[in-house]
């Protein structure tokens, strides 16, 4: 049972990681609390669903949701955050919250208030391995998140873009003097991070077989808690924080029977981190290594 619960927790953690890593990336370069990231997630879910219904191919749906996410992310950055960048970050935050609500409600106006679902034979089946049961939909989420996280790792660690991104997020002015076009880097970072928010929307929509306009409500604030735990702009901190919170949520319900509401756990964890290790969990690990 413990092993089954760990699998359950890792799957949820993988989904959290897809949403919060993009958020950490965006925070890293613009220092904006990008609440509308969860709006991109909702749009990605709808685009993915309708692409699937039209083409019958889940691969196409993945590409469509990522493309839609990237385009929307870039539009938000170009037309909302960029004009506001000279003002206090609070202004961007308020714009972001407004944008998030508008995105969700416009999805409701376009697609209606009812929950949309995938055809019933999509990922409908399970594999028994010893005493363990893994559903097809769980495998799909596990596989797609591992592939995406590997891609994020490759792009941020092994490419020139990744290097430039690091430079821009550390000091934009110095990066500029070294010949990095920071506007281009910000543009690409938004496209890249938002593509995974779109993908996460599709995965969650398919995993729970429900796409609806308010599906971004919980991710909107939980992803914030996760990146705080991970150290705000630290992408890998966000990754480990996601897995950790996914596991803590699942195990606290399934093994320890803690009667606290599930969605509060991420925040309790966030408060603890802010109190004792405000730099994020990566610093905690570093401390342990020493």
């Amino acid at each position, binding site marked *: *049972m413990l092993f*089954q*619960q760990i699998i*359950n*927790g890792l799957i*949820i953690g993988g989904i959290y990681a897809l949403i919060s890593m993009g958020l950490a990336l965006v925070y890293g370069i613009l220092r904006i609390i990008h609440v509308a990231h969860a709006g991109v997630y909702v749009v990605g879910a709808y685009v993915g669903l309708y692409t699937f219904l039209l083409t019958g191919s889940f691969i196409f749906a993945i590409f469509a949701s990522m493309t839609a996410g990237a385009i929307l992310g870039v539009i938000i950055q170009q037309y909302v955050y960029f004009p506001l960048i000279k003002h206090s970050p609070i202004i961007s935050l308020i714009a972001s919250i407004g944008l998030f609500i508008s995105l969700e*409600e416009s999805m*409701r106006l376009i697609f*209606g*208030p*009812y*929950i949309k*679902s995938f055809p*019933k*034979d999509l990922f*409908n089946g*399970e594999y*028994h391995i010893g005493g363990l*049961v893994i*559903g097809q*939909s*769980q495998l799909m989420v596990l596989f797609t998140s591992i592939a995406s996280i590997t891609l994020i790792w490759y792009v941020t660690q092994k490419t020139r873009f990744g290097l430039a991104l690091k430079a821009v997020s550390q000091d934009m002015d110095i990066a500029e003097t070294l010949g990095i076009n920071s506007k281009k880097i910000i543009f690409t970072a938004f496209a890249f991070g938002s593509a995974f928010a779109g993908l996460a929307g599709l995965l*969650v929509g398919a995993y*729970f*077989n*429900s796409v*609806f*306009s*308010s599906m971004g*409500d*919980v991710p909107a604030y939980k992803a914030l808690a996760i990146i705080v735990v991970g150290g705000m702009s630290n992408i890998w901190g966000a990754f480990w924080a996601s897995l950790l919170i996914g596991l803590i*949520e*699942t*195990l606290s*319900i*399934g*093994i320890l*029977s803690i*009667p606290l*509401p*599930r*969605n509060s756990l991420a925040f309790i964890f966030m408060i603890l981190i802010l109190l004792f290790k405000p730099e994020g969990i990566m610093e905690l690990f570093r401390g342990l290594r020493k």
Partner: protein
Amino acid sequence: MRFKSLFLGIVLSLMSVSLAFAGGVIKIGFFSPLTGFAAADGTSAKHAAMLAVEKINATGGILGKKVKLIVYDDAASSQQAVAIARKLIQENKVTAVVSGSYSTPTRASAPIYQRYHIPLVVAYATHPSITKAGNYVFRIGFLATVEGKAGGYVAAKVLHAKRIAVLTMDNDFGRSLSKGFVEEAQKSGAKIVANMSFALGAQDMSPFLTKIKALNPDLIYCTGYYSEGALTVKQAKSLGIKATILGQEGFDSPMFLKISGDAANGTIITTDLNRNDQRPIAKWFITQYRKEYKMEPDMVGASSFDAVYVLSEAIKKAKSTKAAKIRNALAHIKNFNGVTGFIKGFTKDGEVVKPVQIQKVVNGQFTYFGVVDKPSIITPKD
């Protein structure tokens, strides 16, 4: 200033009755969540209420006047519902009001209708305290504890479950249902092996279900709405759980069937609406709803239809649009043929007495499985 506006409010509400007459229409207020997380239920409720008004107007209206439904969106929020209550009473000057909304907003606004003596008929909000607002508040749907009791009876006496796991949704609705269920099931000799609670909107039920699987119960009672219910059923199947899943009216939605797919088959629920009902009114509602809205009707819709319908019946019986007369007529409604069954009447607390329907999902459709009409179960205690 405050006193002035209060005074104005009272005057306006007193004028409401005569103005409704002057317009040649009878205005019925209606509020339901048309945006936000509960928008799907709110929209079904609105559709069905509009259908009821259409039917009433097509058959000559009430007292020779057409009925006009004045619809507001409360977004399932109590603040909005309170503002709407004031607007309906003071600006729109409605004759009576129907709640097509959830417990929280209905509970917050019921005392206002009571204070201004505007009859309020609650369609499907289940919280016990709503009708406690006073004698102008009536409920056409079940009280949560009554339906929970019926569920306990079905589990122990009809399905003969011995070991039961309960999954309680942590809000007014879920908690009152589970309370009624556990009491009745234990009284009938079943053992509750687990009672765990989850939050409204929870999607990942696998940690609960993995734990339940290890306890090996023969029945799982779940008090979620259709989304939580569908995901419970779906994830239980993919974890290889064989126990029967018993739900309640929260599951009663075409969306439940869509989200859970094949996993829904075999699920049993207690609810208000019997899909195989042969009575003309129920058949008419089911066919007409499908035709006009291209959707399967649900219990939320059926209850909202009945709420508007019973109200119009009461106004006809009262032969007047005076609030006090309508209230009296509602209190004395007997053997009313509604879409949600043969309504015996209201208790003196304004709670409905009607049989609880049991439906089972067969081939992806809710179908008749049985009915609970034992008076000791379905009569709400004072």
